[in-house]
């Protein structure tokens, strides 16, 4: 098994983020909330009944999800998705595919996060802050919020199939 990049967080750093890019969507997640980054070739991609696009790991498998630009479930993995990021979760990590992934230090890059405007909040959104990065809009999510969001999407998917 190849590992693309192991993310280690010896010291909790509020400014260290992992940036996931897919479908022109930029998602920033605190590095401390990331378990690992892996290459998609190491995943077992298969149709599932949970809305995930496959699994990773042996024994206690982690489900992998694929989202589009609107952060809705994709059931087929686009060819551009080369990586997946495993987020820490209570039971086992939960994965999200992406085209590109990189470590970003927001402080070093002089990136200033702003709270998601009150009027844009929804009960289901995992987004807590916004940031402009390389002339694009980045959405900042806490790992736990993203895991909760993916879990909810999966539940909704399973309910819709009944």
């Amino acid at each position, binding site marked *: 098994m190849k590992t693309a990049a192991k993310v280690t967080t010896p010291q909790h750093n509020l400014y260290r983020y992992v940036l996931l890019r897919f479908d022109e*969507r930029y998602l920033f997640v605190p590095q401390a909330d990331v378990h690992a980054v892996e290459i998609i070739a190491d995943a077992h991609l298969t149709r599932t009944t949970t809305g995930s696009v496959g699994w990773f790991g042996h024994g206690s498998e982690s489900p992998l999800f694929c989202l589009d630009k609107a952060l809705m479930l994709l059931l087929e993995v686009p060819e551009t998705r080369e990586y997946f990021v495993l987020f820490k979760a209570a039971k086992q990590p939960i994965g999200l595919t992406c085209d590109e992934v990189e470590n970003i230090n927001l402080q070093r890059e002089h990136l200033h996060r702003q709270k998601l405007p009150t009027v844009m909040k929804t009960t289901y959104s995992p987004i807590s802050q916004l940031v*402009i990065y390389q002339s*694009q809009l980045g959405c900042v999510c806490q790992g736990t919020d993203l895991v909760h969001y993916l879990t909810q999407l999966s539940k909704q998917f399973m309910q819709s199939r009944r």
Partner: protein
Amino acid sequence: MTEPTIKTSRAWLLDFGYHLQAAVGLHEMRQVLIAPELFDVPCTPAYCSEVVLFQQLILPIFDIPRLLVGRQIMTSRHVIGIAVYQEDPNQPLHYGGLHLITTPTSIYVNDDQVCELPAQQQYWEPFAISCFFHQGIAVPIINLSYLFSAQFNRRQQEKINN
């Protein structure tokens, strides 16, 4: 006997399309941006799903037709009014964007133009401070601080979730 003086105020007349017009006070419209770059934010209400960058601030943009009549504002070029509001006089100024179909028009409004909000325009009621008659139509005056408030957002989310 002296005649009562009629107070005249200046305001901006805003055209949202779909025969939806409203007004804000002269000092409540900071600037108008013609065809700025807009960024969509996922997992947001349909009536406020985009942001614009204005003076280093990421501002939400309100789509009034989407909220009131369920139709997206249609225009060949984006016209964004940058509105300014205060939650109370001791609070700092806040900014928010409004989708318009054309640049706002400066008008004079007299006290004797005040009218009731017509029955067929009651959808304005939650965020209309008052209303005045102008060139044959009733024009509501928008309560900007309420429109962009957490209270308004909560009400809308409750409606959607119920």
